[in-house]
């Protein structure tokens, strides 16, 4: 059988249908990768879209699998596509109602790193957003406790940004032995 034909015949995923009906102005792009729908959503409406995905009884993406980010500063193609937004905050959701997985990506500009925290929707976002803050410096507004989670509290910089040197900036020699809570 022809595989391509198979793909073509598949019906449009319910999540796309419903979002196009209710939040069409929030959608910047859509795609499909590894069996999950990928949506790129405008930052100012990201929270509303995520809330809709979670609370809509048919979709019911109740499980927040992961929150992370991507630094696209060296990915010219991605940069051009989304108005030179350096970061892409990524939410992975899963629905137990049979809708499977969906990935929501939100472009974030370097000069405005704020984005609304989703801890109000999923308690589990707490540590995931702290990690994203720690590694990329994304500022999750409304987060109850936005502290570093992996790096030491007095660490400077955000090491998963592409401009951070792999071997660091001398922290291995000059880290603080005393100030830590050990």
């Amino acid at each position, binding site marked *: 059988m022809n595989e391509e034909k198979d793909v073509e015949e598949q019906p449009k995923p319910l999540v796309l249908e419903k979002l196009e009906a209710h939040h069409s102005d929030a959608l910047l792009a859509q795609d499909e990768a590894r069996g999950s729908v990928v949506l790129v959503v405008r930052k100012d409406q990201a929270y509303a879209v995520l809330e809709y995905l979670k609370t809509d009884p048919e979709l019911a993406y109740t499980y927040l699998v992961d929150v992370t980010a991507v630094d696209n500063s060296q990915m010219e193609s991605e940069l051009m596509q989304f108005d030179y937004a350096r970061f892409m905050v990524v939410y992975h959701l899963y629905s137990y109602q049979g809708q499977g997985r969906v990935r929501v990506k939100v472009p974030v500009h370097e000069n405005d790193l704020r984005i609304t925290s989703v801890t109000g929707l999923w308690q589990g976002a707490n540590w995931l957003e702290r990690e994203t803050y720690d590694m990329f410096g994304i500022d999750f507004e409304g987060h109850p406790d936005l502290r570093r989670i*992996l*790096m*030491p509290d007095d660490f400077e910089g955000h*090491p998963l940004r592409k401009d*951070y*040197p*792999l*071997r*660091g*900036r001398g*922290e*291995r020699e000059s*880290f*603080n*032995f*005393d100030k*830590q809570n*050990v």
Partner: protein
Amino acid sequence: MGLDFVGQGAGETDGNIITTTIDKVVNWGRKNSLWPMPFGTACCAIEMMATLASKFDLSRFGSEAIRFSPRQSDLLIVSGRISIKMMPVLKRIYDQMPDPKWVISMGACASCGGVFDTYTLIQGVDQFIPVDVYIPGCPPRPEDLIDAVLQVQQKIASGAAPKGVEVVYE
């Protein structure tokens, strides 16, 4: 060993008197009852657990009494990656162990950072705590860890001071 049985004849004390020195007896006791403090932070710790379990059975060498309190142990086994956030913890644990104490640096990561030449990983714990025996490998097999314990035992039996002790000769 320096433990000598005295007497050749048919007297009552034959074979029942041992002459030795205090140092030798103490070292003999120490060497055969090393109590390890495991500091397992990564995959090497899995091999360390295997070493302690029944198949490799470190207790054959007197070191099965794992102590999770540094105050009750005299052999620190650093097995795994140590980050800049973990190093102060490791140093503190080392400082809490009573003298005399020995340190085994198990695996490439603990000894030199291994493949993780990155911003957050200590490139060798010996920059901050004295290490007596290094074990190469990623991860080392349990036999390697047993060999390292035996080398620590040899070192103790020979009367050499642990790496962490400054010996002042008068």
